[in-house]
């Protein structure tokens, strides 16, 4: 078997990941049929959110406290970086019945 060939690479990847525990993550939040999913997400300051709009309708991800306001054009993915900590309720300005929560740790 050739698994041996991959072992050094895997070890390097593993140690690489362990050596940088504070590396920012990328989190995906999708809208499908006017629902944000997952509806509750935990993240950290510095993480990137990939907002994936699977609908044919434009949406927004708008923080109630004004921390962010992301335009989500139909059938597109946009990204934003989380800058401030807090438990943020957000909604879609075009369809205020779309609501979700993002908990951002410092």
């Amino acid at each position, binding site marked *: 078997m050739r698994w041996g060939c991959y072992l050094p690479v895997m070890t390097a990847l593993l140690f690489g990941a362990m050596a940088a525990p504070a590396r920012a993550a990328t989190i995906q939040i999708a809208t499908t049929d006017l629902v944000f999913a997952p509806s509750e997400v935990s993240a950290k300051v510095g993480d990137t959110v990939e907002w994936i709009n699977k609908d044919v309708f434009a949406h927004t991800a708008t923080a109630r406290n004004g921390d962010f306001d992301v335009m989500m054009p139909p059938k597109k993915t946009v990204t934003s970086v989380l800058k401030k900590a807090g438990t943020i309720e957000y909604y879609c300005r075009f*369809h*205020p019945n779309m609501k979700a929560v993002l908990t951002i740790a410092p």
Partner: protein
Amino acid sequence: MFIRLSAAIAALSLLGNAALAQGAKPTDPQIAHIAYTAGVIDINAAKQAIAKASNKDVKSFAQDMVRDHEAVNKQALDLVKKLKVTPEDNDTSKTLSKQATEKLAELDKLKGAEYDKAYVANEVAYHKAVNGALETQLIPSASNAELKSLLQTGLKIFQGHQQHAEQVAAKLK
């Protein structure tokens, strides 16, 4: 105001009456026609608002209406084509269109803040009426699963519009 607002609701409640009178629920081709017509009516009202409204929030709400209802209606057209269903004109669609034409003429006589308020108030009432019709008549009557699912998405969109219109109306006061 009450009489004006109730026009759209009265038209949509005919749905129930018509179905009762015939002793039959609307067919899928009729449902498709009613849903499409309801969308066109809101697009026409929004186009008038884009031209006439003076308030920035009202104008951008109208632009949202054009964009969303055109997107829903495009999906509806794609679906009927796929299902090889020809939307069938019917009394409910005809009454809706007639009432809407009257409403447009009535709104056209208003100006400035008076127009803005009347347009947004009608949007609240109209979406409420359409949502009621979707929930109690159109969705339960639809037999094709894909049509039913599109109507359910439509309901969520229109409920969103209703809330959005209520927020815009509250700000105008």
